[in-house]
């Protein structure tokens, strides 16, 4: 909401306050300032000049050479514009001048002739939005403009305008009078709203028009005035200046009046060409299903029964509060006009404008809610302006249909409760004076519980807490003392799952991985990209009805594509090797009719590429599981997952439960992501890991008796798995085995084709006695025999 301070000053004297200070104090009393603007601030050293003489440029067909009288001297300027004539007065950017957008103008030569500046178009002065065809040629100023004057004075620039952010609870502040009310409270200065006097022509409005409201649920008030013998022309400068400063483009006197009054009072008005209304009658009714109306923008709109229209007995004229009709639009030819002021149901306007896909300044104001009691003032103000601008003669009287008048309501307030709620000690008198300055009357002032009488423009105030806010913001939030919460100390802290998440992050970052965070809304094309079968449950997703695009249209069911994208992005940035992890949610649709919500599961995905192999990522997982107290787990071969390499993939089982998958990503997929390296990824069910984790630690005494170490190098078929050998070692060694360490695996030279050498170091120890060599040798031999007979292994010597 753009508020020109000059305009505001008409209702409350603030012109002695620095605009920045004004903005700061308004912000602190509840009207948040987005920006303090000085119109034309970027323009420097641009003056008015008269074109004394125009000659053709000797060296360029499209250029002309102008001798410019700029007051102090006559200078030569070359221009390419073709709308310049001798005698015209135009804006001249002198040498060293500045224009909006940081443009600097300097003296220079154009095709051999000196040019001492530039003649400006309206667009070049930043007036593109307000002047028709602003960029088409040089901005020709009125003939009586003085020469050699700063252009900012001529165009009424240099004004302070404040851009306020008006919150949805304060539609009353979407007006100069509303903001003046706030300023008057903030600066404790009197508010003066000029009284309205309309000079009427003596004819009776009832002879011209009759109004019937058929849909009273959608229209609480409808008032009209008639203006005769209108003369459509430009508005006076003062009005155009205010409109421009408030961000509204001047059109003609009648349209400008409706806009001016809307900005001043916050009440949208609509002007009809009276002669296009049949039967001297306005009917406010619901549209008929399928009824058509050609709107101002020239489009045929199909209406339905949920929409409110303003009609005459024959046809709809406008969509109420949303958009005018082309037929009844005010044009240069109009000679009689009907001004409408109305209060339409906000929700209805909102739904209608949504259905029609069209939002106007008026419709958005109706949506937010307007005090029905300002309707008549606004209408009369428009009539007053018609007379003031000599735009026509106003017919006597108004037609005003307003059955259920909205009256002020009361809210019980207890100063004591308010102080206890705010944590303040504001005297009752102070509270009362704050409320009264806000036009909220207080009655029963001598009682503990008083009554606040809420003016109808403050629909946002219903409860004592609302009053507390009014008092607090004017008293000053920063005057409320900061205090600590009293009452019993609470335990607070992290729960088990949150602590485990923290440990997991420590372990994974300690393993050299970087944590990533990626969008949880993804593309349905991701599934094809990672070879997810058509019938996979992963494809059953939560889908967004109104996504930003296909790429961000479903809730993810796997974190793998996001991880691949992170890897691809980093690879493309010439990072040769890296590892990442993400702890994030996936979303499984649930058919549960009661919760209606999906299951949100926490998943852990780890990804690495470059200087690593399967065993690096497996090691990461093992370290994580062990750190979380999960000692028993099993990696089982998984060769049927199309996302992964069939020979280099395992599923992870804990207590016979599948908790995830780890392996090398299928080479076809890697290619699709443009990563020419091996990529290893695991995806684990983190909720399961949390529930399986065992964080309680129990001390085990350190071993008292010495250990005996035996090494064993075996030659086995290459497809024998280490786990098979280890199972046998454990089975035969029983509780004498303290640890088994695989220390070498080798294929190649000196090893027969199809075989591999695999070497273990086994540590034997008993916790109740010193082991003897004989005893260990016996066990060790039995292990060797067993691997020989069961796995066809040969002992290497």
């Amino acid at each position, binding site marked *: 909401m753009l508020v020109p301070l000059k305009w505001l000053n008409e209702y409350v004297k603030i012109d002695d306050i620095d605009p920045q200070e004004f903005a700061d104090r308004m912000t602190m009393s509840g009207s948040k300032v987005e920006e303090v603007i000085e119109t034309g601030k970027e323009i420097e050293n641009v003056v008015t000049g008269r074109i004394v003489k125009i000659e053709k440029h000797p060296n360029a067909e499209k250029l002309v050479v102008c001798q410019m009288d700029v007051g102090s001297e006559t200078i030569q300027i070359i221009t390419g514009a073709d709308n310049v004539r001798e005698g015209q007065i135009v804006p001249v950017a002198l040498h060293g001048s500045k224009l909006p957008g940081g443009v600097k103008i300097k003296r220079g030569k154009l095709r051999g002739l000196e040019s001492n500046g530039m003649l400006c178009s309206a667009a070049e002065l930043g007036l593109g939005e307000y002047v028709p065809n602003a960029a088409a040629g040089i901005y020709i100023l009125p003939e009586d403009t003085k020469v050699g004057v700063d252009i900012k004075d001529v165009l009424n620039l240099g004004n302070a305008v404040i851009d306020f952010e008006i919150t949805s609870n304060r539609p009353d502040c979407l007006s100069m009078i509303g903001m003046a009310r706030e300023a008057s409270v903030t600066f404790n200065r009197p508010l003066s709203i000029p009284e309205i006097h309309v000079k009427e022509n003596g004819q009776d409005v009832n002879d011209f028009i009759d109004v019937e409201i058929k849909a009273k649920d959608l229209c609480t008030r409808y008032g009209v005035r008639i203006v005769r013998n209108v003369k459509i022309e430009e508005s006076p400068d003062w009005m155009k200046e205010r409109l421009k400063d408030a961000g509204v483009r001047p059109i003609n006197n009648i349209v400008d009046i409706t806009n001016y009054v809307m900005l001043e009072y916050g009440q949208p008005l609509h002007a009809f060409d009276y002669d296009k209304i049949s039967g001297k009658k306005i009917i406010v009714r619901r549209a008929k299903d399928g009824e058509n109306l050609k709107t101002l923008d020239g489009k045929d709109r199909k209406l339905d029964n949920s929409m409110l229209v303003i009609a005459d007995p024959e046809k709809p004229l406008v969509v109420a509060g949303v958009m005018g009709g082309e037929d009844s639009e005010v044009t240069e030819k109009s000679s009689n006009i009907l001004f409408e002021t109305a209060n339409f149901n906000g929700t209805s306007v909102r739904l209608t404008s949504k259905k029609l896909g069209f939002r106007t300044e008026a419709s958005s104001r109706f949506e937010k809610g307007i005090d029905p009691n300002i309707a008549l003032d606004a209408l009369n103000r428009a009539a007053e302006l018609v007379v003031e601008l000599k735009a026509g003669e106003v017919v006597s009287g108004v037609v005003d249909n307003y059955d259920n008048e909205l009256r002020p309501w009361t809210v019980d307030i207890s100063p004591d409760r308010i102080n206890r709620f705010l*944590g303040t000690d504001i005297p009752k008198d102070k509270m009362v004076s704050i409320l009264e300055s806000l036009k909220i009357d207080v009655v029963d002032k001598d009682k503990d519980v008083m009554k606040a009488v809420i003016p109808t423009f403050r629909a946002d105030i219903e409860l004592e*807490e*609302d009053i507390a*806010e009014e008092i607090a913001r004017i008293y000053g939030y920063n005057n*409320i003392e900061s205090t*600590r*919460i009293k*009452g019993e100390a609470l335990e607070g802290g992290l729960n088990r799952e949150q602590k485990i998440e923290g440990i997991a992050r420590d372990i*994974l970052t300690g393993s050299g991985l970087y944590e990533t965070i990626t969008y949880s809304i993804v593309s349905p094309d991701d599934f094809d990209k990672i070879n997810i079968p058509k019938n996979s449950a992963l494809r059953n997703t939560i889908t967004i009805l109104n996504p930003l695009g296909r790429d961000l249209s479903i809730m993810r069911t796997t974190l793998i594509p996001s991880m691949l994208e992170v890897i691809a992005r*980093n690879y493309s940035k010439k990072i040769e090797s890296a590892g990442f992890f993400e702890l994030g949610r996936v979303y499984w649709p649930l058919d549960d009719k009661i919760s209606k919500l999906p299951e949100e599961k926490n998943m852990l995905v780890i990804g690495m590429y470059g200087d690593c192999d399967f065993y690096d990522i497996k090691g990461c997982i093992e370290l994580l599981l062990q750190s979380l107290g999960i000692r028993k787990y099993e990696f089982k071969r998984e060769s049927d997952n199309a996302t992964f390499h069939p020979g280099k993939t395992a599923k992870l089982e804990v207590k016979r439960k599948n908790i995830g998958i780890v392996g090398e990503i299928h080479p076809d997929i890697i290619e699709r992501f443009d990563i020419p390296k091996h990529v290893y990824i695991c995806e684990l069910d983190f909720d399961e890991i949390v529930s399986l984790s065992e964080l309680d630690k129990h001390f085990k005494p350190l071993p008292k008796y010495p250990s005996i170490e035996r090494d064993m190098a075996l030659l086995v078929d290459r497809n024998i798995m280490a786990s098979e050998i280890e199972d046998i070692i454990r089975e035969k060694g029983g509780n004498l085995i303290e640890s088994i360490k695989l220390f070498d695996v080798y294929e190649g030279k000196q090893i027969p084709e199809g075989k591999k050498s695999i070497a273990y170091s086994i540590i034997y120890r008993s916790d109740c006695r010193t082991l003897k060599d004989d005893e260990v040798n016996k066990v060790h031999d039995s292990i060797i025999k067993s691997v020989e007979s069961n796995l066809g292994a040969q002992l290497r010597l």
Partner: protein
Amino acid sequence: MRDQLLKIKKEASEDIKKASNAIELDNVRVKYLGKKGSLTAILRGMGSLDSEERPVIGKLANEIRSEIEELINEALESVKERERHEKLKSEIIDISMPGRIKNRGARHPLTIVLDEIKEIFTGMGFLVVEGPEVELDYYNFEAMNIPKNHPARDVQDTFYINDEVLLRTQTSPMQARYMEKNKPPIRIIVPGRVYRSDTPDASHSPVFTQIEGLVVDDGITMGNLKGTLDIFARKLFGEDTKTKFRPHHFNFTEPSAELDVSCSVCKGAGCSVCKGTGWVEILGCGMVHPKVLEFCKIDHRKYSGFAFGVGLERVAMIKYGINDIRLFYENDIRFLNQF
């Protein structure tokens, strides 16, 4: 003979002093104490002495012998010591060569800041709770005092799943979910992802992170809200941080405020982070709206509370001087390894 002995002693000690290494010292030993050594020769020649002189000279000779031995040993020790020192000194490595760093790894900056925030609030007795991201319209809006067709809904730019289900636009729905199940005293923070239909650019992201805070108890005041958030701001941005509470509007709080903190980058002097104002807005807050308490069956005549919502990305951007929100979600390692 006595003179001879004393001369040997003197010569020997000079020779020892001159000797510069173990071999030379050994030569000294041979020269005086060896089988053909001069002292040995004298000892051998003792037979020619008379019986009175023999024990006296013998004693002296032995004393001199052990003195020389001792001197040689001492010299040998110091030579060894010197040689070892020389050897170590020659074993030079280039300490300017790069150290071997194990892969570093790091938490995501958003996690780092979130952990800090969790620590601040858990220290003040808050619990950390989480809630669903795919949420019912009821909790996201209605229970937060934003009824159907309320104009505030347009501003929110909500992603819908169906008529009743949406992606939460704020962490506030967890206020209602928590209050339905737990009675005061309540002190929680709710971190989590939220969604708004904003096209990604330097300051917008359709997915981002919020931290909701809620305190409900008997006698909670707006002064408590200010006091709690003052502590939060000072702990997060530094002890010298100043705060400014500005009136604002949210449907689920009344009174409502926005909190500005003095810019931690320029200390209030004005910079690009604070757009020259010296202040940055970090959160919205307010006293829990009585209608929200009512929705959750908490008696608003008995209890009051405050709530706040912090944008995690925004806080991290201010804290680290990051200028583009998209960097958090691109996960470029050159970004991640700065934290």
